[in-house]
């Protein structure tokens, strides 16, 4: 049991003062130091002149490269040392590369039981003809989920950094100049080219996404192609046309829905896999468009996120907001 000390006595102890100092409730200078308001510093013209001359002379002395051997020597040494450092780095990296196993050799450490399993059982277990997609979206779907989130977070950061300032000056005009003034004004060549090119580009992107488990392609590449098509359309026809179907709200809804769908689908397959429950989703015939279980759904989700991200990046760079 601690001894109860009266308050007056406690205030004399070191611990009380320490606590006071720590909390900042007591200014140690108050009452101990004589305080006076600071005098304004007024410099006479002679002193200013003297100081300027002194500075100029010093500058001349320092940057007089012909006579100042320290500076000129340093500059020479700097060049020599930077060249030496570059050569050293290149040699180090080349030596490191020379220790890597040669490309395509059968006894490389890459060719272990993991890749063996992917190649032998991949089609059987994932139902995807394209082993790469089977690997990315089935065995390593968790990594792909992280990648999609990285893209989403990158867009959020760009949204924060490049958002247009909404502050207005006295006349009610926004402070930052809108980029819309520099928009192309009905460029005939660009519009005709876009009219011909944009539909095939977007259809090709959809094909790449939907055929991800059958041939080369997948959500990421297909999404990037669709995003590029949307950017071309935007460039040709301006923001007014694209705003009819793609605004910030559309982007947010689409990405959140796609990411949530991805999370749910993958949680389901993780849950069933970890608990050795038979999944109800059939793998289907390998080679058919509706096959390979969840891979098609996951591909579509990734494609939506990537396409939206690419388009949003461009829009944010162009005018900082939809």
């Amino acid at each position, binding site marked *: 049991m601690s001894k109860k000390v009266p308050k007056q006595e406690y205030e004399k102890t070191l611990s009380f003062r320490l606590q006071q100092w720590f909390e900042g409730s007591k200014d140690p200078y108050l009452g101990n130091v004589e305080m006076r308001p600071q005098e304004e510093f007024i410099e006479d013209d002679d002193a200013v002149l003297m100081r300027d001359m002194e500075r100029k002379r010093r500058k001349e002395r320092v940057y007089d490269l012909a006579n100042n051997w320290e500076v000129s020597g340093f500059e020479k040494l700097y060049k020599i040392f930077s060249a030496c450092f570059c050569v050293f780095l290149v040699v180090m990296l080349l030596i490191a590369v020379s220790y890597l196993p040669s490309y395509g050799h059968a006894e490389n450490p890459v060719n272990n039981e993991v890749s063996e399993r992917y190649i032998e059982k991949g089609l059987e277990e994932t139902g995807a003809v*394209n082993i*790469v*997609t089977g690997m990315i979206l089935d065995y390593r779907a968790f990594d792909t989920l992280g990648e999609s989130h990285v893209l989403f977070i990158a867009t959020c950061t760009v949204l924060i950094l490049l958002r247009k300032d909404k502050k207005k000056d006295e006349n009610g005009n926004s402070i930052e100049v809108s*980029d819309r003034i*520099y928009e192309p004004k009905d460029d005939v060549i660009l519009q005709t080219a876009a009219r011909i090119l944009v539909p095939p580009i977007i259809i090709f992107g959809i094909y*790449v996404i939907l055929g991800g488990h059958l*041939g*080369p*392609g*997948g959500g*990421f*590449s297909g999404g*990037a*192609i669709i*995003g*590029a098509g949307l*950017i071309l359309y935007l460039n040709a026809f301006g923001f007014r046309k694209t705003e009819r179907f793609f605004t910030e709200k559309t982007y947010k809804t689409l990405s959140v829905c796609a990411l949530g769908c991805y999370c749910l689908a993958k949680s389901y397959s993780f849950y069933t896999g970890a608990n050795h429950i038979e999944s109800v989703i059939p793998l289907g015939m390998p080679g058919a468009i509706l096959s390979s279980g969840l891979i098609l759904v996951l591909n579509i989700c990734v494609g939506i996120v990537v396409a939206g991200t*690419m388009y949003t*990046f*461009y829009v944010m*760079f*162009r005018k900082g907001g939809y």
Partner: protein
Amino acid sequence: MQIFTNILLGFLIICAIAASLSKNLLNTILIFMSYSLVMSIIWILLESPDLAITEAAVGAGVTSVLFFVTLKKIRAMVKTEQEKGEEKHE
């Protein structure tokens, strides 16, 4: 085929050096674009068409467009008065 691959690899090195040595930022982006295109052909030769599609779409397409927009934003694509004068002089 081996010779073709070697030519492309040599082109990659030339592009990488040229992009870092080029004084004009617009030229640097164009060189970077061609680097990505050659890289996508090399991916096909290495039998990974998935990566080739992605490289062509992202590396040569979207990234370069973003670079162009950035250059436009920082007004680096606008010619200075001095350069315009030099052109007239020529």
